[in-house]
């Protein structure tokens, strides 16, 4: 705001939004069909899902390619840049609220539903009538509820891989910031090194996360079925991991765009948007580390 605009900019027509709607529909239709299929009849849904997913990737590629071309052709004025920035900020806010739903579920379960099942408070009689043997606790002893759904399990120790992953993500936030400063100073070599490092750290994080999941399933018997502990653990860390994956891919794309010289020190919204996204993913991890692993 605050600047004067000589003329407004409205982008030309594009078929990408319509394509996007079609491939999104294809993807979820395939996924729903797959989930609902009779046992032994999974072919159709999976095929449609795969086609849809490939379509989504192609759509992102095509849509972003056309936007990048327009941007390089100098079509976008500073007002468009501001619109993009607002769009990204509010998108990240919506992501915050999405994680908020799952964190809210975690807090509610730990503060209310598990203690109530254990007999705390006088309003809830479930304990008395159904599971009077259940001593409420979180973690390995009571986190899978009075029916011990999924069987006995162990929790992931916070001070092993999760701590390492915390350090990795924190360092990646530092490296992406160094790259940002280098971009503003115009040192392309330095950007490539530090942005590349960020991508590698992201990949390393995902690698360790995968190890952690494998260990949880094989050694600890901590699975998606391990009561509400397993549900909150895997949904929270899983959605976070999904976002790290997305962020790493976006960072890698930006790395290639830096290599091709798409950005200059005044004009690099794409870089900043991804950097914001990366910091957001980092902050979510800190909350996860605190509330899922440590406490």
């Amino acid at each position, binding site marked *: *705001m605050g*600047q*004067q*605009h*000589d*003329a*407004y*900019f*409205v*982008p*030309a*027509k594009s*078929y*990408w*939004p*319509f394509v996007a*709607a079609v491939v*999104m*529909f294809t993807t*979820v239709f395939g996924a*729903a069909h797959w*989930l*609902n299929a009779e046992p032994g009849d999974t072919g159709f849904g999976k095929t449609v899902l795969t086609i849809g997913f490939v379509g989504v990737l192609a759509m992102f590629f095509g849509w972003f390619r056309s936007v990048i071309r327009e941007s390089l052709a*100098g*079509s976008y*004025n*500073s*007002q468009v840049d*501001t*619109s993009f920035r*607002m*769009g990204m900020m*509010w*998108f990240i*806010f*919506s992501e915050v*609220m*999405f994680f*908020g*739903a799952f964190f*809210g*579920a975690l807090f509610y*379960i730990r503060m*209310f*539903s*598990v203690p109530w*099942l254990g007999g705390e408070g006088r309003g809830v009689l479930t304990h008395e009538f*159904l599971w009077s043997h259940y001593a409420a606790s979180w973690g390995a002893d009571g986190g*899978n*509820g*009075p*029916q011990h*759904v*999924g069987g006995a399990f162990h929790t992931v120790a916070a001070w092993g891989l999760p701590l390492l992953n915390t350090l990795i993500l924190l360092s990646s936030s530092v490296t992406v910031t160094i790259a940002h400063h280098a971009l503003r100073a115009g040192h392309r070599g330095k950007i490539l090194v530090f942005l590349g490092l960020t991508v590698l750290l992201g990949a390393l994080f995902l690698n360790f996360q995968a190890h952690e999941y494998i260990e949880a399933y094989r050694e600890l018997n901590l699975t*998606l079925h391990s*009561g509400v502990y397993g*549900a*909150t653990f895997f*949904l929270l860390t899983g959605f976070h991991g999904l976002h790290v994956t997305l962020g790493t891919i976006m960072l890698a794309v930006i790395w290639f765009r830096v290599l091709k010289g798409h950005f200059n020190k005044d*004009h690099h919204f794409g870089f900043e948007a991804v950097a914001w996204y990366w910091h957001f993913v980092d902050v979510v991890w800190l909350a996860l580390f605190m509330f899922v692993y440590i406490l």
Partner: protein
Amino acid sequence: MSHAATHDQHDDHHGAPKNFFQRWCMSTNHKDIGTLYLIFALTMFFIGGSFAMVIRAELFKPGLQLVQPYFFNEMTTLHALVMIFGAIMPAFVGLGNWMIPLMVGAPDMALPRMNNLSFWILPFAFTLLLSTLFMPGGSAAGGWTMLPPLSLQSSSLAYTVFAIHLMGISSIMGAINIIATILNMRAPGMDLLKMPVFVWSWLITAFLLIAVMPVLAGAVTMLLTDKYFGTNFFNPGGGGDPVLYQHIFWFFGHPEVYIMILPAFGIISEVIPTFSRKPIFGYKAMVFAIASIAFLSFIVWAHHMFTVGLPLGADIFFMYATMLIAVPTGVKVFNWVSTMWGGSMTFETPMLFAISFVILFTIGGFSGLMLAMVPADFQYHDTYFVVAHFHYVLVTGALFAIISATYYWLPKWTGRMYSEFWGKVHFWNSVIWVNVLFFPQHFLGLAGMPRRVPDYNVAFANFNMISSIGGFLFGASQLIFLGVLIHCVFFSKKRAADRVWEGAKGLEWTVPSPAPHHTFDVPPVIHEGDLAHGHVND
């Protein structure tokens, strides 16, 4: 400012493209996309309305009359989902799309391609949702709130959940677009506190949408994993709690209620000043009232859950917080009345709908206050009293505002006047039959008739029959609306002036009627007389 780049890229600078696919499927034009939204909403309004007709036909007499109970439950569930996500919300987004750029002097929405995507997701999402009706096992039938464990029994849950995900993505993108348009695309001189109230109401609504649609996505995702992936979020045996779903759902659901009424407040705040030929009374109070209602909407969700066994302290907190909402809402109602006070009023169709909105929405607000009281709610909960309450705020509230807005801006969209006579016929039929339809439901609820039942005690027979008759005639009255629209768009000979209504203020009346395909290629210079509120600073 760095622009070697302010040339614009229209290949269609002087009008709409002739090619059908290019014009409607590849659009970056806020007016065309707004039109698509409005046509989609009207279609969904009639589909959802036909579901309501099935419900009222079944309830015409006690005993199972026409349909099987499961099909009845599908109808109540889909009626709600279609009307909320398919009719009311897209209609508001369509109105916002059409009018916000015109009202703030912008050439288009801030992110026009994303705007097109927001729209085109919707037909696909509703195809997915409605296709479940034809699947083995049927559609979701546990109510639109989809409370577990009942909703987990639906065999087509995955389709419903993904349809809701798509609608959520569409709404979030639409809301981001509206915020970016309002904050970034205003013409110089259109300060925030000079914007029309409708624009303000949409700015705040868009914030609510971005804040709560992701929460709904999270809630239904947990349903999905509980059903298909063996998680235990809502299973007490595994440490979960079905009430958790209700908390998350209503944390979305209550702001959602205001998402469906705040733009209506905005519309009424445009229509009443125009036909009273006075500026709105207490402009800033109106804006701050909308903002306070939006804030309060985040801390009242558990008033939908008084009977689930919350701790007493929670019940009391949510009761008082809910009653607090009556204060800013009362400010609005009094300001609308004060705007009319002493004005030289005329009663064209939009004004008639607006006045009936003020009266009938207030009835819905008062029954809401009754429901807010914990001890009373124990009696009213899940009865037809609740049904009557939310239909007074959604039909005579949100829907009447949308209809009012349609009559108000239709001449601007089409360049032709609608038939005032048939508009009034539509109004009087709607306003009479809607009360015949919903007012008796208060009595049914107070007498104890539960909602979502295909059969009922014979003691409720008379009021149900009256309500059904009102329902059929209210439904039929909307065909008059359809006729008026078709006549206006295709056949009307009467040209509309640029400033269609004598007392209308605001930038949208400075452009020709019909509004040309592109307006405001350069930021308009705003004159004192164009502004609905405030003064031009030099």
